[in-house]
């Protein structure tokens, strides 16, 4: 566990830079996280990120690609279009949530 400074304040992150404190996140910070990984946020991106935040608040776990489709209503194809190559990781990174459990 370490800290880093983003959007002018100190935040807690894990070894890969994923936020570890749900409440340290806001949309200004999300914008900066998106910039870091080269994602230009559009209203569609924000819809996905807001779904992830709300779902996490309810379940205590980061939604998987399947759940973002089944429960959030964002088709997997769209998730790949919005967050290329690794949608699961990129969505959760921007949403300030842990990586979805890879389920060993």
């Amino acid at each position: 566990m370490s800290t880093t400074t983003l959007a002018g304040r100190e935040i807690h992150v894990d070894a890969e830079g994923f936020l570890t404190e749900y409440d340290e996140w806001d949309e200004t910070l999300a914008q900066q996280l998106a910039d870091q990984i080269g994602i230009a946020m559009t209203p569609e991106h924000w819809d996905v990120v807001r779904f992830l935040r709300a779902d996490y608040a309810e379940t205590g776990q980061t939604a998987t690609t399947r759940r973002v489709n089944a429960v959030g209503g964002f088709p997997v194809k769209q998730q790949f279009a919005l967050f290329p190559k690794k949608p699961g990781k990129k969505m959760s990174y921007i949403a300030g949530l842990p990586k979805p459990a890879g389920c060993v």
Partner: protein
Amino acid sequence: MRRLLILGAGTAGTIAANKLRRLLDADDWQITIVDQRGTHYYQPAFLFIPFGRYRPDKARRKAASLIPDGVTRVQAQIDRVDAEARTVALEDGRVLPYDYLVIATGASPHPEETPGMEDDWHGAVHSFYTFDDAVALRAALADFAGGRLVVHISEMPIKCPVAPLEFTLLADDHFTRRGIRDRVDITFVTPLSGAFTKPVASAAFGGMLAERGIAVEPDFMIESVDTEARRIVSFDEREVPYDLLVTVPVNRGAAFVGRSGLGDELDFVPVDHHTLRHAAHPEIFAVGDAAAVPTSKAGAVAHFELDVFPENFVRIVAGEEPVASFDGHATCFIESGAGKAMLIDFNYDTEPLPGMFPVPAVGPLPLLKESRFNHWGKLAFEPVYWSMLLPGRPLPLPAQMSMRGKRVPA
């Protein structure tokens, strides 16, 4: 008389029935187990059957022979659970009431979830996660004289997540022994970012694949199988061609779990990670692959869960609080070919690490390293499974993972 109902007579359900029958007073408790199959499979054999290294009929036994006296076995398909009424409806119309319910109906492959996958099933598209699939693949591999073999995982989580890797390593060994390895291209295609989920093991396994000239296609989320052109296509439009596809289809929990409103989007049952108790229905528990807990879906995990759960259950029914103690412990042998195997030991918080097991420095089983001892360990496990693990007799392994003997790489 209180009623405990166990759904599913696979590894987890059978161990639960045996242990709980011994722990619960026969005068106070009626225990019933619903067996949907009638046959108990030694599932580790499914990995060896395709290579002709295991006689298929040895992998099956009558499930009834493994259920103890004092437990009523009902063979039927499950329609749904009514968690409010505390009843389970069977497809034949019978209704079984319960006071406590243990869901142990496992995980199963669903090729129909991926467009095209079923179109050439047991043609050029195969799997080894059911008895019939393993037997069909044995014939296909025997006929395979060269070309592109693609070993593929559709989506996590899957049952026995190291098995696709083992299959790949054993395929390399199989073709080498047949003298045709130079005529076979092997590609390992995975939705994960590497050969395994956890970094230290992923690097070790990745190195083993590279040494054997096996290509890895990571971050591949399958959209469809094009059986005409013989290629798999990802959501981000990558294509991997095959002559023989050995896939692990999407794994789902039992459909009745979803119909009963007790499951997640894959019909696995969300339960407390340490007590395996359902949050909304405290009289319902899930064990084995059926449980949505972030550790491997594997027989070893079912075993370690059931080192902890039965005693907890006794506390709960006595009106005491459960002791939160399942730690996600998993131990897996990984066959790597040429008579050797690796061993990994891990839990929710600690990834697989190198070291010695079970006795620090002495072993005899090295962790995360190929060894003949591990291969013998895997072979020696089979009689232990039937005679000790299923009947719920104690094994000389601690329920909780230990850091003793493990080395944390700098």
